[in-house]
């Protein structure tokens, strides 16, 4: 748990190093609006120079930069999606990514645990082999290709799900709580629509969420099914499971109560990897579905050589991963009394 702080410092050092590899110009690019020209530009540069102490050694500059980051001055982003302060861009895009990952995590949890148990119980039977082949295929598929196949099947061929975006634009025309593609107050369209009692928009927003979240979950699910199958097979060989069988407990109860709960622990321990996988997948999948979240903002920042967006996104993803792993560590210590930090 104490490792949290060094990891966090290391993360900022990595981002700062990336900012400084090309000299101070990259740092300036993160804070300087490209629209400024002439005297105003020179004035802002002088101001930044004073703020970041750019004439000092690099290790001194790092601390001044860190102070700015801690104060919430993350620089300026300038992409077709959004231009303005990075922190505001995060406030707008992050809720969308959050609801997407939560949906995906729920699907993963609901599908992969029962499937993992099923394959372990029916080991080497046709259903086990079929699920293993399917999950291996999804594992070997690039995320964007899963998304495209789903688009071709459900949006182009059957026409039952929308192709991209968050909502059908004709539904949100003239709504008082929706401006320029941003909904208020939570910035999550589905929740805002429910808050305002507009169920038609909410349903449409929900339909738009299905394909991205299913794609995201399919990419990560395969690894979890494999893990669950392995630990379940191991647990089912153990003495206490055999004992439960021997004393006459029905097989269903043995599997679902004795074996499954004990097999879940290693799976829960690997939840951090799952979060990492989800955050990586978001970058590609949001781009495929034109879903305005952090991932799409990041790719658009990459395509437009926008320093603020790239570094802001990197820092944000790092912070999320580090804090989730901290919370998970605390959680394990609570669940498993053998673990003490």
């Amino acid at each position, binding site marked *: 748990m104490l490792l949290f702080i060094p990891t966090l410092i290391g993360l900022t050092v990595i981002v700062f190093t*990336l900012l400084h590899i090309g000299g101070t110009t990259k740092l300036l690019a993160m804070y300087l609006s490209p629209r400024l020209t002439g005297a105003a530009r020179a004035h802002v540069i002088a101001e930044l120079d004073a703020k970041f102490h750019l004439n000092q050694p690099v290790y001194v500059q790092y601390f001044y930069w860190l102070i700015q980051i801690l104060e919430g001055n993350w620089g300026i982003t300038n992409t077709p999606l959004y231009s303005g302060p990075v922190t505001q861009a995060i406030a707008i895009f992050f809720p969308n990514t959050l609801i997407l990952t939560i949906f995906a995590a729920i699907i993963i949890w609901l599908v992969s645990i029962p499937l993992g148990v099923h394959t372990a119980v029916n080991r080497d039977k046709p259903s086990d082999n079929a699920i293993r082949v399917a999950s291996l295929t999804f594992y070997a598929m690039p995320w*964007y290709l899963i998304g495209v196949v789903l688009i071709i099947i459900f949006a182009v061929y059957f026409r039952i799900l929308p192709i991209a975006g968050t909502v059908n634009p004709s539904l949100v025309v003239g709504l008082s709580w929706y401006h320029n593609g941003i909904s208020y107050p939570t910035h999550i369209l589905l929740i805002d629509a429910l808050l305002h009692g507009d169920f038609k928009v909410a349903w449409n927003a929900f339909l738009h969420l299905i394909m991205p979240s299913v794609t995201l979950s399919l990419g990560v699910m395969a690894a979890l099914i494999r893990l669950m199958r392995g630990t379940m097979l191991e647990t089912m060989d153990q003495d206490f499971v055999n004992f439960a069988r021997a004393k006459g407990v029905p097989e269903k109860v043995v599997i679902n109560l004795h074996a499954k709960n004990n097999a879940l622990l290693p799976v829960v321990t690997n939840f951090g990897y799952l979060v990492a996988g989800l955050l990586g997948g978001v970058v590609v999948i949001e781009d495929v579905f034109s879903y305005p979240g952090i991932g799409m903002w990041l790719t658009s920042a*990459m395509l437009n*050589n926008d320093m603020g967006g790239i570094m802001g996104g990197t820092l944000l993803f790092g912070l999320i991963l580090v804090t989730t792993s901290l919370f998970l560590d605390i959680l394990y210590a609570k669940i498993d009394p053998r673990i003490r930090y």
Partner: protein
Amino acid sequence: MSAQKTAKEDKHRELKLSMEVFFSNKSAVAGLVIFLFYFFDAIILQFFPQVMPFKHPYSLTPNYVNPIPLPPSKKFPFGTTYPGVNLLTAIIKSIRLDFWLSLAVVVPGAFLGVIIGIVATYFGGLVDEVLMRITDIVFSIPYLVLAIAIGYVLGRTLDSMMIALILVWWPLYARYARSVTLEVKEITFIEAARAAGSSKMKIMFRHILPNSLPPVFVQMSLDLGTIMLTISALAFIGFLPAANLPELGYLTSLGYNYVETAPWAMIIPGMFIVLFALAVNLMGDGFRDVIDPRRRSAL
């Protein structure tokens, strides 16, 4: 003399047993066959491009007269993609680049990782702690995001993509090599070597290193597929701005705008990515069986 001979025979028998274990796994053999197709494609186009009837073996040949994707036909067995690129030849050219790029990431990544893993276990204590902390820090950023950030700093080219992926990948191997080395270190024959008076250096490089290499090789063969997927994902989101590069991910992104009218332009290059990733996964599982003593004794 005779001792040497039996050692040679032993080695021969070991090799034969390994082959038997591998070839008894049908899906692994299938994976190997597919892998060899990709391998020979890469070798031929890299070193003997004159064998193939291509005017430009290292770039796509667009046809702006007829840029709209055409469905598969006799002239174009896989169809064409925007802008009038023949998919069959484009895929043959792309496999070369993808294959060597994956190899160029896996080999230095594994090399760096193994060296660092062995150094960490050799010195132990503070060095171990610091090195493992560094891998933690690199792991704290999703690798796709870190690759994008590094790509921005170095400029988005093919070389910087390779460097970015190596920088992202070595911690994985460092951790893996460290865990394998720690495992090997506890086996009795290391203790025997120490008792026989071998130096620490000799134990490290003569005994531990050769025994920790096979699991690393298995991991490398599995990772070839993962890296191919990552490369194609990066190319798809537009990491490589230089158009005309024969790369499978870039080919799929060319077809993306026509996904409603010409699904083959995306599905067919995509299938070749999936095929490779699947093949190396199956092959890697086969190799894992080979080094698994339980499987060996079962035969």
